[in-house]
Each structure stands twice: as C-alpha cells, then as structure tokens.
C-alpha cells in the first residue's frame, strides 16, 4: 500500500526527504540525519520488493543516508579534520535539498500559468497553400528537428479542434434515395408550404450539397415537387405537388 503512496506523491528521493523534514517540523539546515534516515528507511521498507528495480534512486539515497548517519557516530574530531578538506556530506545534502526546494516552491505558480493557458484558444492558420507559388530549389539553412515536431504538435491540436465540428457535420455517405426520403419527410412536416430551396442545404459539406441538389432534381422529375421562382434572381422555392 505504502509503495503506491510513495510513488504517487513524490517525485524522487529529494522530494520524499523534503516531505519528511516538513513532517518532523525540522529545520532544513539543522537536519537531524539520524531521525530522517530512520523515517526514510521506514518508507523504503514499505515499498514493494518487486518494484525495487524502479526505485533505484530511492535506494541510492538510502545508502547515502545510512553512510552519513554512521559517520556522524564517529568521534567529532575526525569529522572536523575532514571538514577542512572536503564538504561535509550532510551539508552537501542540505544544499541539494535547498536547491531542489527552490523549484518545488514555484511549481504551483508554474502549473497555474499552464492551466490558465488551457482556457484560451487560438485558431489554426488560414489555409493558404493556394498562395504557394514558390518553386525555388533553395532549402532554408536554419531548420531543426524541433520545427518538424512543432508542426506535428500543431496539427494534432488542430485536429482536436476540428474533430467535434466534423462529427456534427455528419460525414456519413448518404445516398440520393435516402436524401430523397428525408426531403419527402421534410415536406410532410411543412405541408402545403413553400420552402426556400436553400433551407434544404443545412449541412455545409460539398457532398451533402450535391446529393441534396440531385435529390431535388429527382423529386421534381418524378413530379413530387414543384420549383417556383417569382422572378429573375428571386429566391427559389419548392413545394409539394398536390
């Protein structure tokens, strides 16, 4: 159980250490290695042995802590002597924790900026391939792989943007027979009414336009519908032949 907790809650051994220090209400700078080490090991203990492979970083830190703890048990004199020449491992760890905490502290603000951005949207660039007249053989010399990746990411975003609209604009292949039936149904609802031709073209896809137009011609041809126009360039109306 605890293993899951550790992995989900912590981003690594430093994160876990910061958590323990906070939990013990310890000063980061006067870190009591022995206390923290015991706590840390208690956490590690609860981890699932099968997952230990993925826990290597936690184990390395555990080893360092144990080493530190044991060193601190040595006579103080010796520690002092070493101090003159090399950094106390404890201070080194504290330094790392302080540095790590610096980033940890801004993370919420960082995350908020990211989340805020999710609420504003941009549109895909206008389709301007038609303007492309350039046929030079020059290849730009400032290209990087990043450019390709970025273009792909933009495309994925664009696809996400268009997907719902596209699905609303039913892409189903509709036959003239089916569309004719829909139009008959439409006139059953609008009995004895004159209906503007354009009202039938409710889905703005080319295929839908074509199928609808052909269906109207078929229905007129079968004498089911009549086309009316009050004058040149006036609206075109359809109505059922009675």
């Amino acid at each position: 159980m605890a293993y899951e907790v550790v992995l989900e809650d912590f981003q690594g051994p430093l994160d876990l250490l910061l958590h323990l220090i906070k939990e013990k209400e310890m000063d980061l700078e006067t870190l009591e290695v022995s206390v923290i080490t015991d706590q840390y090991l208690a956490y590690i203990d609860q981890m699932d042995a099968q997952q230990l492979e993925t826990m290597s970083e936690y184990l390395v830190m555990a080893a360092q802590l144990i080493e530190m703890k044991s060193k601190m048990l040595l006579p103080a004199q010796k520690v002092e002597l070493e101090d003159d020449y090399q950094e106390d491992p404890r201070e080194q760890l504290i330094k790392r924790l302080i540095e790590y905490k610096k980033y940890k502290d801004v993370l919420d603000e960082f995350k908020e900026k990211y989340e805020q951005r999710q609420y504003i949207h941009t549109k895909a660039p206008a389709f301007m391939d038609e303007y492309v007249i350039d046929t030079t053989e020059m290849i730009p010399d400032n290209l990087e792989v990043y450019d390709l990746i970025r273009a792909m990411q933009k495309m994925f975003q664009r696809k996400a943007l268009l997907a719902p609209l596209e699905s609303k604009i039913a892409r189903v292949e509709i036959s003239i027979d089916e569309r004719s039936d829909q139009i008959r149904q439409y006139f059953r609802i609008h009995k004895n009414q004159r209906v503007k031709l354009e009202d039938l073209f409710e889905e703005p896809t080319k295929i839908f336009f074509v199928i609808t137009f052909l269906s109207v011609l078929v229905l007129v041809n079968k004498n089911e519908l009549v086309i009316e126009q009050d004058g040149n360039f006036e609206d075109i109306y359809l109505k059922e032949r009675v």
Partner: protein
Amino acid sequence: MDKNEILSVIEGMLFLSGDEGLTIKQISSVLKLSKKEATQYVDELIQIENDKTIKGFELVNFGGVYKFATLAKHHEYYQRMIEQSENTLSNAALETLAIIAYNQPVTRVRIEEIRGVGCDAMIRKLAAKALIKEVGREDTPGKPILYGVTDEFMDAFSLTSLDELPELKEMKEDFDQEDIFNTKYTEE
C-alpha cells in the same frame, strides 16, 4: 448573459472555426438560442464587424456558413506574407514533411487524409526543393505515386537516421500519471 457578451462569444466562436466557419445551427446549439435569435445576433455582428474602423477581416456568409475572411483589397500583403516565409519553411510545409517522414512511402491522398487539406501545391513545392521525391508507385488502382524524404531532407534537419525523430506515440501521448511511472524510473 447580456447582448454584448453573446455577440462576443459568437465572434470568438467564428474566430476559432477559422476556414471551416459555422452554421446558424451550430451557433444556436452552442449558445442554446433559437435559430431565429442566432440569425439576428449574427446579422448584428456582421453589421458591427462591417463598421469597424480597423478592419483586417470581415464576417461573410458563404452558402449558410459564416466565417471571417480577409479583405480582397489587402490581398497583396497576404501574398507577400506567404512569400516572405519562403526563406523558412511554412508550418504547412513542415507538417507535410513530417507526415511524409513518419509514413513513407506514402501517397498524396494519404497525406491529405492526415492533414485534412489538399497538398498538391505543397508536394510540388517540397519536391522542387528536393526535400521529398517519388520513391515508387503504389500497387492499387491508378498506381498513385509514393513519396519519401530525401538525403537533402536528412541533411537539412541534421538527421543521421529517421529513428532520431521522436516516436509518434510520444508526440501524441498525454503526460498522465500512469505513464510517468512507467518511464521515469526506467533509465539506461
């Protein structure tokens, strides 16, 4: 929501829909308005956009599809904008290149399917730059041309192998917790 807010949201929706545009039906369904109300708002918006002092684009109605479109009189600048980008590759060009690199050998139709737009001019342009080339014909009716990337492409992007491109899976995946666990600690 007051009228100005409704008009603002409609403006934003039309903006987002870009080249695709929106029908009255779509607008009314998002804003939960009747078609009649939606039509009135859109008509008013057309008027407002039309009366702007600074007008880079206007609201047009093509066969029941409303969309913003730039003005014909500014055409030369937009033309120039595209031309200016010739010493870099446009996003559309890069996108097409990436699709070819990931899917080669690939037909134009397949590329268009993925991009969702026609690519005829773009493919000619990329071929002229020798970034892509014909690598064969597909064994299907019509024997469509298959395209692939060239050595010049590899050179231009400093690639020694296409394996250096990130996996498509990685590009699409979300950073969900689950995945992080599987990848974070599995180091070399």
